[in-house]
């Protein structure tokens, strides 16, 4: 097994230390595999965003360590700019941060600040736009503000990609998008993962989204890592998720209810196809 791309060791984060202090993260130790898609799930205030902001040095640990690609982010003299190029972050509602007159200029903003050669900027911008399904011939010269919500969000994603990050952190990337725009976003995200081998860390409370994209889940509750594992494993624990204010995806909930009513359904059942085959078999006596 190769070395994890991100490791946290006993990571604790305390806001405003003192009598009014708030422990935002409490002793979190986890590993994120290279090339994986890991989702951090939990209700508002559980510490999800605080956790991922440690991954690119936006926050430094109060105690414990965060190691990114072998580099301790809390060490003296860490090159934060290099770290942030390595770990790109797409914030919530990123389309609100678009401001340039053309799509090209918006996506080129980061690479230009890096003082890359003009040709290289162009290459990166075009490549990033093509990757997120906005062919540069068609979109580069347009105003970002005349695009649909889903397209604007993908422009913002292209802006992060143009920095060629090895890790891509996405904070609630599809909230507010409709079903189609969401599906499209997932499609391009998968493509980024496959074509560019980027490691993805997803902050989400949308369980359907998590079930579609992630291969590993970390559940946070009041700043603590309370459960982790593959989605199938986590979603089979519907009752526990509820205690943490979370809900399994509707299909997993249905299967949990069927289990409670005495049907034997293996915990690994996750997809619609799996559930269909299983139930058709179980209920075959009733089929007419």
């Amino acid at each position, binding site marked *: 097994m190769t070395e994890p791309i991100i490791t946290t060791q006993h990571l604790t984060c305390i806001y405003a230390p003192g009598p009014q202090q708030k422990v935002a993260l409490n002793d979190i130790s986890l590993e994120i595999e290279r090339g994986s898609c890991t989702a951090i799930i939990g209700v508002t205030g559980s510490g999800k965003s605080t956790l991922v902001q440690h991954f690119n040095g936006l926050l430094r640990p109060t105690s414990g360590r965060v190691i990114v690609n072998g580099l301790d982010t809390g060490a003296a003299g860490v090159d934060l700019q290099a770290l942030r190029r390595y770990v790109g972050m797409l914030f919530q509602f990123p389309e609100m941060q678009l401001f340039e007159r053309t799509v090209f200029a918006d996506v080129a903003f980061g690479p230009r600040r890096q003082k890359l050669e003009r040709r290289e900027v162009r290459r990166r911008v075009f490549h990033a736009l093509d990757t997120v399904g906005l062919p540069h011939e068609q979109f580069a010269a347009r105003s970002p503000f005349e695009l649909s919500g889903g397209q604007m969000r993908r422009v913002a994603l292209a802006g992060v990609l143009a920095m060629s990050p090895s890790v891509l952190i996405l904070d609630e990337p599809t*909230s507010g998008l409709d*079903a*189609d725009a969401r599906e499209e976003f997932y499609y391009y995200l998968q493509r980024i993962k496959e074509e560019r081998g980027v490691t993805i860390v997803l902050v989400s*409370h949308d369980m359907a989204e998590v079930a579609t994209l992630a291969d590993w889940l970390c559940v946070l509750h009041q700043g603590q890592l309370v459960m982790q594992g593959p989605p199938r494993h986590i979603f089979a624990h519907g009752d526990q998720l509820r205690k943490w204010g979370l809900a399994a*995806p509707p299909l997993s909930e*249905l299967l949990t209810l069927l289990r409670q009513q005495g049907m034997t359904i293996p915990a690994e059942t996750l997809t619609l196809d799996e559930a269909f085959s299983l139930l058709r078999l179980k209920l075959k006596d*009733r089929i*007419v």
Partner: protein
Amino acid sequence: MDDRHANPFIDMQRVSYVYTPQQRQGHGGQVQALRDINLRVRQGEYVVVLGHNGSGKSTLARHCNALLTPTSGRVLVAGMDTSDRTMQRAIRDKVGMIFQNPDNQIIATVVEDDVAWALTMRGLPAALIRERVEEAMEVVGISDLRERAPQQLSGGQKQRLAIAGVLALRPQCIVADEATAQLDPLSRREIVALLHKLNREPGLTVIQVTHLLEEAALAERIVILQQGQIVMEGPPTDIFSDLERLRRLKLAIPEPIELAARLREAGLPLAPDALTVEALAREMAR
């Protein structure tokens, strides 16, 4: 004619609405957001208005309390024409609105003051305000949060607060415009459950606007918009019987509904009105 048509609470007659380039603030030319909408909502009815982004559903919602008035056609609320400026105050007292972003709806720095805000602005007697605020907080379940700062509340709690603020005005109808869109799944269900409760107990008319089919399962009637027109309308059992069409309307089919449809197709008899996870589980485990 059934009584829905005889005595509608909200009566939209051939309503069209066009956004001007000025309104769109440089985002392009004029856009026709509603086209020839005829919709009648009976007192006490629970109607879900469904559609994807840009279908016109929020524009329609804003016509229910005169936030927008039709470019052509007319909207009557309890018989009052929303285009009549002298009626708009009375209309807004009858029809309260909840929006998508709870942060934009909060004014005061303490929960109970926020609930009281609109009443205070109307200059009502303090004792009456107190009574109404107590009642509203009680109904939505935020009494224990009365002294908190709204910023400290979760998204779901903020929406409850927004609903309490509207309830304090004793409206006859609540219009919830994508009120769950920014919430996590559990809070989302709680808010939908609260809207149903308000529909049952004080008997409020509820118009719930959403892009999520799963939130529509318990409605009395579903109205689906596409490109500013009503393209489907009926009780949930009818609407959910044509999944292909819903897919074409860019609505995501909830997986349990999809599963049930495939099982029915394979020959398993399942009641057509089983549209929630609980009802489907009962049907399947029977």
